[in-house]
């Protein structure tokens, strides 16, 4: 019901009324009944007044009838004394407020109750025509009776008082009955329900008991609802507890893993400000102290030289929503000199990033070692053919740095004989010695390689002049031709034939250079060994 006055009354009652349903309901019903009773009594007073008016008028008519005969005589004789007697007698009736007797237009007598000299307002009255006592057809006068307003009021009020008293008694009784009924039907079950709610619930009786007699009504329904709610809550709480335990467990596991792992991990926001990290992160970056929260990753001392690269990675990871990785060498200025890390940055969410750092120094080192192995001759420690190719390619790619160079193709003479007579071990010893000898003949920075069984190559950098290259080649031949004393005390003698080719790196290629040097070396071999031959400088 949203009838406005009722709603207003209810709110008013809720605000001002005592904090008890019984008292509030009783007070409300009492007030309402009182109000209605008063209105009813007022209406009743009006009705009673009207009703009494009509009744009194008929009474006055009877009254007039009793004095009619005397009035006839008074009017017939115009007898004022008799008229006064009649009026005085009539006035003894309380209902009569005034009397007027007149005979044929002449006022015989009139009288009014109280101070009023004449009837005021709209008083009820009756006018009776008086006929001659001897001739019923002849009119001799009129008698007018006025109803007493005071009497009417008093009468109506006395009736109304009775009605009011009865209503008041009824209101009291109904209010008391209401209080009792509300207490029995509403408040008491609610109070019992409240006590039941406060009772500690055990697993033996987890549900609330319905107050007796309320099983099938709204309170029973309420208890059922509360029980449903409690069951639901219990289930929720236990589910929540299980979840929390699981969460704590996995949290602890994660923390353990994070603390124990060798992987450095950290979380940062979109601006690269660090939010959290694990100990391995600090260890791997060899930070002197724990970074402050909010410190920017790229500004950490070990990464300071790579600020731009790291910020780029951050941006790309955020924009492309994919991981970016980079290998970084930590600068020697920090405590992690010579160490390599791999930094990978992975987007976690719209403004969070997960960074992973791990140490790749070992990998870097083994890769470097493998590369070195692949480029060098294990016997002599000199470059092998592949190493030489790489070096030459690098030199030619480098351009103007060494604009001219000379390549010496060195082929040992008589080595096969040494190998055949003294065995491979001696051959190896000779080859090692040859390597050392050639190295001692060239300048530091020049390249020396062993590209075949007894074939060596020396690359002289910046050897602009044929003469200078020839001198070095002659030096090599001189050293190699000198007798060699092996470990076992045996003395051997070998020699070398050398082909020299010169090149401008800008306009030549390593392969062509090699071909020319080889050709020159063959020429040297064929022309008697132990000598240096020069390839034509402008060979195609």
């Amino acid at each position, binding site marked *: 019901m949203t009838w406005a006055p009722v709603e207003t009354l209810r709110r008013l009652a809720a605000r001002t009324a005592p904090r008890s349903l019984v008292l509030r309901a009783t007070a409300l019903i009492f007030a309402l009944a009182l109000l209605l009773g008063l209105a009813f009594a007022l209406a009743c007073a009006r009705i009673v007044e009207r009703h009494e008016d009509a009744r009194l008028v008929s*009474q006055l008519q*009877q*009254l007039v009838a*009793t*004095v009619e*005969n*005397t009035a006839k*005589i008074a009017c*017939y*004789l*115009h*007898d*004022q*004394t*008799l008229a006064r*007697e*009649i009026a005085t*007698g*009539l006035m*003894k*009736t*309380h*209902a009569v407020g005034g009397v007027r007797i007149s005979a044929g237009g002449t006022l015989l007598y009139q009288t009014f109750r109280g101070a009023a000299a004449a009837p005021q307002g709209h008083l009820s009255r009756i006018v009776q025509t008086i006929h001659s*006592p*001897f*001739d019923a057809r002849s009119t001799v006068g009129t008698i007018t009776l006025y109803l007493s307003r005071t009497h009417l009021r008093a*009468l109506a009020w006395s009736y109304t008082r009775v009605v009011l008293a009865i209503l008041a008694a009824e209101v009291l009784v109904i209010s008391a009955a209401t209080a009792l009924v509300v207490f029995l039907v509403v408040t008491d079950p609610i109070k019992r329900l409240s006590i039941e709610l406060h009772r500690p619930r055990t697993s033996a009786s987890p549900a609330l008991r319905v107050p007796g007699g309320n099983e099938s009504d709204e309170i029973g329904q309420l208890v059922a609802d509360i029980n449903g709610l409690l069951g639901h809550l219990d289930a929720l709480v236990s589910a929540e507890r299980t979840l929390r335990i699981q969460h704590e467990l996995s949290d602890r596991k994660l923390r353990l893993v994070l603390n124990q792992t060798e992987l450095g991990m950290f979380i940062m926001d979109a601006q690269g400000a660090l939010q959290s990290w694990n100990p391995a992160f600090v260890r791997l970056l060899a930070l002197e102290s724990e970074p402050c929260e909010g410190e920017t990753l790229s500004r950490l001392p070990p990464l300071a030289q790579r600020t731009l690269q790291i910020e780029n990675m951050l941006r790309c990871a955020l924009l492309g929503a994919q991981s970016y990785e980079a290998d970084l060498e930590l600068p020697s200025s920090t405590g992690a000199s010579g160490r390599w890390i791999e930094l990978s940055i992975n987007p976690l969410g719209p403004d969070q990033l997960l960074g992973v750092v791990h140490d790749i120094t070992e990998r870097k080192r083994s890769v470097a070692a493998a590369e070195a192995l692949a480029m060098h001759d294990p016997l002599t420690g000199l470059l092998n053919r592949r190493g030489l190719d790489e070096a030459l390619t690098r030199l030619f790619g480098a351009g103007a740095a060494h604009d001219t160079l000379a390549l010496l193709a060195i082929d040992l003479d008589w080595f096969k004989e040494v190998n055949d007579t003294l065995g491979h071990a001696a051959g190896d010893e000779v080859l090692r010695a040859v390597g050392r000898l050639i190295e001692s003949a060239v300048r530091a920075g020049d390249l020396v390689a062993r590209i075949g069984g007894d074939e060596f190559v020396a690359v002289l950098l910046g050897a602009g002049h044929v003469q200078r290259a020839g001198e070095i080649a002659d030096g090599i031949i001189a050293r190699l031709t000198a007798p060699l004393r092996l470990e076992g005390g045996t003395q051997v003698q070998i020699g070398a034939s050398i082909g020299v080719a010169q090149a401008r790196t800008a306009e030549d290629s390593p392969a062509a250079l090699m071909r020319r040097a080889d050709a020159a070396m063959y020429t040297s071999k064929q022309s008697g060994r132990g000598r240096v031959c020069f390839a034509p400088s402008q060979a195609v």
Partner: protein
Amino acid sequence: MRRLPVMLLLLPALPNALGTPARARPAAEQDLVVIVNPAAHVAHLTRSQVIDIFMGRLRQLPTGAPALPIDLSGGAARAQFYGQLVHWSLAQVGSYWARLVFSGQASPPFRVQSAHAAVQLVADNPNAIAYVPRTAISPRVRIVLDLGPR
């Protein structure tokens, strides 16, 4: 209703037979006539005028001269007269006058002992007016209303 005053009887002496026709009828029926002195110069009176004069309402003759109604004391003629005139019994008439005597404003007609005395009085007094049996009249009076037999 209980509170209403008991009906007031202003004049308990008022006969309840008032207005009802007379029952008693004299054995000897006579013709009654109303007579005045010829000097009064009244030729005729209506029944109503006679009632007014005899019942105290009118104290004058139509000429303006004072009227002196003469009643007969007792006897059948009196009962017949009031019975014929106003259809009242003598008791009612007595009660009527008793009430008016109390107020002091009107008085019953002067009474004489016999019809003869009444005729004599009317003959002597030009203001007198009386009723008598037609048999009792003399030439010295004039009949102004003939009531006739009952």
